């Protein structure tokens, strides 16, 4: 009997021990602020599965880690919002055999962290992220914003985009379809990437986002700034176009003060641009077929300088912040159409 008692104690102790060891990622504290309705939702997807090293003033930085800091700042200050942060770190394996959940998910509600967990993904798009989002979003919001930070979302194939999962394709088509898995449409989509202010990406996003903020040329890895998202906390909320403009302008000011290369940031009013995109995109597609093999990740050309599109590119509906490079062949360029094209 005493032996049985000892076994029972041991069994209970083991249960407690394992309970103690199991890491519960859900932040269990509840406060009344969590019950508040959220006025807006922001989803940040930060790609980290590639080379993101850059230098500034001699110091080395990892762009994805800097971006995570920026996103977290937004989340902490979003007292009336809900913020989802997905950090897409490279896939890792324990002992080179067992897959690890290496991607990180952070969920903030009304400025407080309510969940932190790890997950893995088996596709090139955002299927895993969308599932987590749907499982965790428990409030309705007036405004939905999607922010992607990473390298250029390729127009073609997109294999090798995720360096640890090179077979999983990621391109503008996959991106646009992935967005629909989160929400049927977004008020604002921000692409903190190189070259995605282009006809193809914009065409893919028609009907998915009302406003697009992107760079039609290369964008430095210090990325765009998101402090202006705090305008959503104001009693009088800015229109989505005004919000995008504010983010574009503050990013442009900081980038053009610290960089010697060209800085181009554009805000696209998608509803206004729809007729132009629908008529011009097929022509651009035909042009793309004439390029023998577009160089992946090469800087775009201003579409206004592309012969096949001359007279067709309309910048009405696009607000572009542009400062040419301080050196190089294009340092004399004074204007930009806001549209980047492959050459």
């Amino acid at each position, binding site marked *: 009997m005493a032996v049985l008692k000892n076994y029972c104690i041991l069994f209970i102790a083991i249960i407690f021990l394992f309970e103690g060891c199991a890491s519960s990622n859900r932040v269990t504290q509840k406060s009344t602020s969590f019950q508040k309705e959220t006025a807006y939702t922001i989803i940040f997807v930060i790609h980290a599965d590639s080379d993101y*090293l850059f230098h500034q003033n001699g110091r*080395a930085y990892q762009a994805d880690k800097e971006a995570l800091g920026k996103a977290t700042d937004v989340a902490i200050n979003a007292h009336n919002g809900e913020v989802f942060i997905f950090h897409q770190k490279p896939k890792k394996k324990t002992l080179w055999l067992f897959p690890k959940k290496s991607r990180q998910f952070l969920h903030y509600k009304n400025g407080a962290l309510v969940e932190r967990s790890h997950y893995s993904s088996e596709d090139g798009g955002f299927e895993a992220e969308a599932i987590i989002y749907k499982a965790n979003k428990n409030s309705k919001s007036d405004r939905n914003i999607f922010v992607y930070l990473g390298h250029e979302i390729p127009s073609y194939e997109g294999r090798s985009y995720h360096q640890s999962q090179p077979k999983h394709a990621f391109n503008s088509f996959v991106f646009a379809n992935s967005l629909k898995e989160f929400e049927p449409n977004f008020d604002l989509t921000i692409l903190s990437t190189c070259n995605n202010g282009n006809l193809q990406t914009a065409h893919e996003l028609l009907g998915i986002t009302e406003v697009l903020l992107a760079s039609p040329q290369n964008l430095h890895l210090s990325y765009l700034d998101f402090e202006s998202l705090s305008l959503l906390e104001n009693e009088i909320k800015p229109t989505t176009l005004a919000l995008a403009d504010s983010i574009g302008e503050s990013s442009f000011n900081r980038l053009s003060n610290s960089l010697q290369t060209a800085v181009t940031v554009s805000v696209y009013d998608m509803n206004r641009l729809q007729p132009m995109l629908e008529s011009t995109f097929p022509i651009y597609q035909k042009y793309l077929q004439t390029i023998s093999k577009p160089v992946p990740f090469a800087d775009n050309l201003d579409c206004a300088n592309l012969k096949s599109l001359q007279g067709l590119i309309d910048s009405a509906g696009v607000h572009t912040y542009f400062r040419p490079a301080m050196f190089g062949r294009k340092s004399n360029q004074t204007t930009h159409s806001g549209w980047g094209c492959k050459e």
Partner: protein
Amino acid sequence: MKKLTFSFLVIALIAFLSPLKAQSSKAQEIIKKNINEMVTDVERTSNPIEKRKVLNKTFDKFITTIERVEKMESVSADDKAGLNDFKASFVEKKNELNGLNGFAKVPDNQLNNYANFVQQNFEQADRIVTVSLTTVLLIVLILLLL
């Protein structure tokens, strides 16, 4: 014998830079670190002649490296095209520095900014060089030996 030693060095470098999937990133990082050293050296000296020397020396180092890799038989035609673009970007920057091929010479008081321009220009591109892993490793290997 020379070929054998060279092959051994390449294999050793590949093994050193494991795991496999991260090799390309690490190789690109080594190239970025080389360019960062150039910027730091340019900014460290106040003498414009020295600044130009550092910039020209770095550009020449990269151009020589790329030319050596280009000459290798094992390098594919696609990689040769990628190498050619990579080399052209250094030649272009060297021309601008020295006021050749239609460029106005970079003024002495702009050399720090020019070094930063070169670095930002390479680092903001999504891939510093678009060639296969083997070829980028060869670049790094020769770069380290020069």
